[in-house]
């Protein structure tokens, strides 16, 4: 009954082997076991978006995935996207436009925004809002967040750094 189970997965390009209880969700595994605390835990029932990570390339709520389900999966967290430079322009645009206040929602916002920009290089403001609809910012700084994403999209299309 509820003994730890061995899992093996890839996190930000590194092989990770661990033993986890079935009840442990992926967000807690990343934060508590791997100390990747950029993934935030807000509501723990899929409403706030603060725990958004990539599993096999798709963004998901890591509070609604069990760590045991991530066995043999490829996980990318905000630390991975940040270290690789994949979203450095997006991060700069967030800083520039003051698109974060307390910063709690920011990792999830960046993960979701990058997901949108990969699928749709020139989204309009409505499309940005729709894609971000599952991410709460309780400082309510949405306008600046949408601005920053719109700016990043434009700069990428124009090929500017």
């Amino acid at each position, binding site marked *: 009954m509820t003994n730890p189970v061995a899992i093996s997965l890839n996190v930000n390009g590194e092989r990770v082997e661990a033993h986890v209880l079935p009840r442990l969700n992926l967000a807690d595994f990343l934060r508590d076991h791997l100390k990747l605390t950029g993934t935030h835990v807000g509501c*723990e029932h*899929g409403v706030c978006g603060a725990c958004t990570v990539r599993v096999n390339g*798709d*963004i998901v*709520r890591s509070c*609604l995935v069990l760590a045991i389900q991530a066995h043999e999966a490829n996980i990318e967290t905000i630390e991975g996207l940040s270290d690789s430079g994949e979203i450095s322009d997006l991060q700069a645009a967030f800083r520039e436009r003051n698109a974060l206040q307390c910063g709690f929602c920011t990792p999830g916002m960046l993960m979701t925004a990058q997901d*949108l920009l990969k699928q749709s290089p020139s989204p309009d403001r409505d499309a940005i809002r729709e894609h971000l*609809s599952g991410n709460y910012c309780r400082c309510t700084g949405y306008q600046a967040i949408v601005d920053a994403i719109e700016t990043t999209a434009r700069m990428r299309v124009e090929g500017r750094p």
Partner: protein
Amino acid sequence: MKASAFDYVRATSIEDALGLLISHGERAKVLSGGQSLLPAMNMRLLAPELLIDISGLAELCGIVVKASVLSIGALTRHVDLLRSPEIAEYAPLLRDAVAHVAHPAIRNRGTIGGSLAQADPASELPACMLTLGATIIIRGPAGERRIAAREFFLGIYETALGSRDLLVAIELPAAPKGSTPFFHEFARRHGDYAIVGLAAQGVVEDDRFIDLRLGYFAVGDRPLLARVADILVGIAITPAALAEACSALDDELDPLEDQQASSAMRRHLAKVLLTRCTSALLARPDLCTGAFV
């Protein structure tokens, strides 16, 4: 909050999953995308002793069209429905509806089978199944059963699925020639559960409906295929006829009251949707007048 302790097993085949369900019955829950089950467990609304993970069963994935019937595997994710050319062509209502199911990160994991088995009365896909005349395919201890969608949804989170059953697929007849979908829901933010929603499909000839199906959701304890559609078929729709239909709709609804809306507000919004749907499908902006626009 965190889920309470449970055991976990990965099913290796449908037969394996069925065997586990037979052994464990009500103590077990089937895990597919987990986007309804895991929140309920995190909030301790559910505390199964065992999760049977079927998410690795490739035999439950995919969309096939054969002889004007769409067959959708239970593990087909919302994002797969949204991107499928077959769904866009043969069940455009479903494509329109899925865009309103939660948010991208949830659509990447949530499955059609999970959504139907969950049977939240405010969710979109159960109502679409009624409107589209779906058949739900179930495997259980006595073999395969095929249940019409209108007999599948029995109440809040309640379906014809028994504790030893597995929902394996959904069959939809291809949308009839000349039919047009109408989907709209009122929600606090895009992707949230609806306050009231309507998933409709109509066929119009010479400015009249020759077929109309109205699948309402969040207007009672289960999705509703509104009988009021019959009033609107075959007649020249006037503002008076539409007002009569709105009044008849009232008798069919039994909306719940919750923190999102009163029962009276839901009744009002259902009539607004009937008015907008009729006006849109008939391309008659003049019908959008009066109290319910």
